[in-house]
């Protein structure tokens, strides 16, 4: 599904990602863990195509397609979804109209007919119900006045509606209490599937108690230092990042 080879990226001339290689097969869930400043969030932004991040080398292929050549909205159309660490607020725009617009943009890019308001509403309500969410959430403005937990659940709802092939979850667990964490994790687990790959970026092993990864990678100083099974996360929790990367953890 996703193949990253020798990726190098910098921001304002500062090298953040250094020769990073990673392979994520279809249907698998991989976790990326690492200390603050290791380049975890940068990796997710580079993959999603945010302005200001300069790729200086390497390649990123999504099912054979050169992701780095695409604009952010084209990457979205290719099936890339980034669940933001800090979801943005869009005052005055309801979740419903935001998601309808997004859904129709993606459908248009794939040559499908656009949905009218009624069709879109039916899909959105169905998805909200599947995730055990109140349909009233659709009428509220995008993330405006949402609690931290609600924002993250809203990201999961968007993910569920837009049906991406590649999900990037950037510290989805940050700022959540245990109950909210479980609800969000349940939502993510419900979206696991043979045709969908997930890259879960997190500081703590805690999230991985709820979302079982197939593989854990340790990102330190801009590259993958170690990869292993779920047990690697437990080892990290015990020993800290300092031991693994040979440097002090933040």
């Amino acid at each position, binding site marked *: 599904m996703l193949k990253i080879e020798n990726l190098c990226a910098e921001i304002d001339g500062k090298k953040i990602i250094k020769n990073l290689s990673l392979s994520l097969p279809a249907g698998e869930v991989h976790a990326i863990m690492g200390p603050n400043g290791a380049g975890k969030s940068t990796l997710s932004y580079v993959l*999603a*195509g*945010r*302005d200001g991040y300069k790729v200086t080398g390497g390649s990123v292929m999504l099912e054979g397609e050169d992701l780095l050549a695409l*604009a*952010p*909205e084209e*990457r*979205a*159309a290719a099936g*890339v*979804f*980034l669940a*933001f660490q800090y*979801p*943005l*607020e*869009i*005052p*005055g*725009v309801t979740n419903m*109209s*935001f998601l309808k*617009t*997004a*859904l129709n*943009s*993606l459908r248009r*890019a794939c040559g499908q007919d656009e949905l009218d308001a009624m069709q879109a509403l039916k899909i959105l309500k169905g998805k909200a119900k599947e995730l055990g969410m109140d349909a009233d959430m659709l009428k509220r*403005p995008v993330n405006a006045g949402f609690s931290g937990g609600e924002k993250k659940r809203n990201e999961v709802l*968007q993910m569920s509606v*837009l049906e991406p092939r590649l999900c990037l979850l950037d510290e989805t667990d940050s700022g959540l209490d245990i109950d909210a964490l479980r609800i969000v994790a349940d939502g993510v687990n419900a979206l696991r599937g043979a045709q969908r790959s997930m890259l879960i970026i997190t500081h703590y092993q805690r999230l991985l108690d709820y979302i079982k990864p197939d593989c854990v990678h340790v990102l330190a100083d801009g590259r993958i230092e170690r990869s292993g099974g779920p047990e690697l996360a437990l080892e990290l929790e015990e020993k800290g990042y300092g031991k693994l990367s040979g440097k002090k953890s933040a």
Partner: protein
Amino acid sequence: MREQERLAGVAPRVAVDAVFDSVSVATTYKKTLEEKGIIFCSLSDAVHEHPDLIKKYLGSVVGAEDNFFAALNAAVFTDGSFVYIPKGVRCPMELSTYFRINAQHTGQFERTLIVAEEDSYVSYLEGCTAPKYDDNQLHAAVVELVALDRAEIKYATVQNWYPGDEQGRGGIYNFVTKRGLCKGAHSKISWTQVETGSAITWKYPSCILEGDASSGAFYSVAITGHHQQADTGTKMIHLGKNTRSTIISKGISTGFAQNTYRGLVHVAPSAQGAYNKTQCDSLLVGNLCGAHTFPKIVSRNASACVEHEATTSKISEDQLFYCRQRGLSTEEAMALIVNGFCREVMQEMPMEFAVEAQKLIGISLEGSVG
């Protein structure tokens, strides 16, 4: 005429009076309206057919001596629209006047007069367009509204006059005097405007709240791009007891444009228990445009309550990236964010026109992101 057809197309129950180069060319649905006793015709016809009403009300709210452009209008105006809603009648459809400046090197000086008798209701929409010319053209219109006891007038404007080219050449000078008189007790007048056009706009639709417990409202969206200047706002003059006014103004500037809210809330000594709430929000797109707010409040009655809130914000790169990550193009994202910003005002537009106005906002923003 296409725009008018489009407007008429989405709302088949709209009676239209078309005014080209200050001449009223056609009025539709005249018969249906006549059955209810509603008069909707060109001002020139009204002068012949209803001279008493014209004598009584024309110039009663905006006199010839009011200001320079009102004086110019009073001196040279040729035509316009006249609406009269009799006692107790609820106008069954939207009434609409469509203005267009076709001729070059010219001005448009039409007048609109709307009179709502006791316990009547009317919703009125005004649309404007003009073809592109390199020279500037002048639009100096006058609109007068009179609402008697418990009458309600809703006046909505979609103004899309030619704004000039990217360098600021050409375009309409839109210097319009609009004023409503809430003459009767419990009468209501609301002005709703979506302003996207004109090179320069000076326009302050106002309400004189004379009747006790009368209320006035001003809901405005003004979008300026390139070198456009919009200086718009309202005056709420509280004279009667327990009068209320609401002002919501949303200004959006892009390119090199300047967008100004200029308003006056005046509470006279007689206006016991007057209440005003004002909200002014400005949105900036890019680093070269400007937003300005000049609210003036004069309160001569200690029991009055006047509230003013204002914000200035920018569309952030983060918001745009968030939308693009979900598949929206930059322009779709801009239109969505700006429409959200204007939501409170859009809700005041007649349903069918709100859809058109939303599209117009999208069109106005095209090319505003580099």
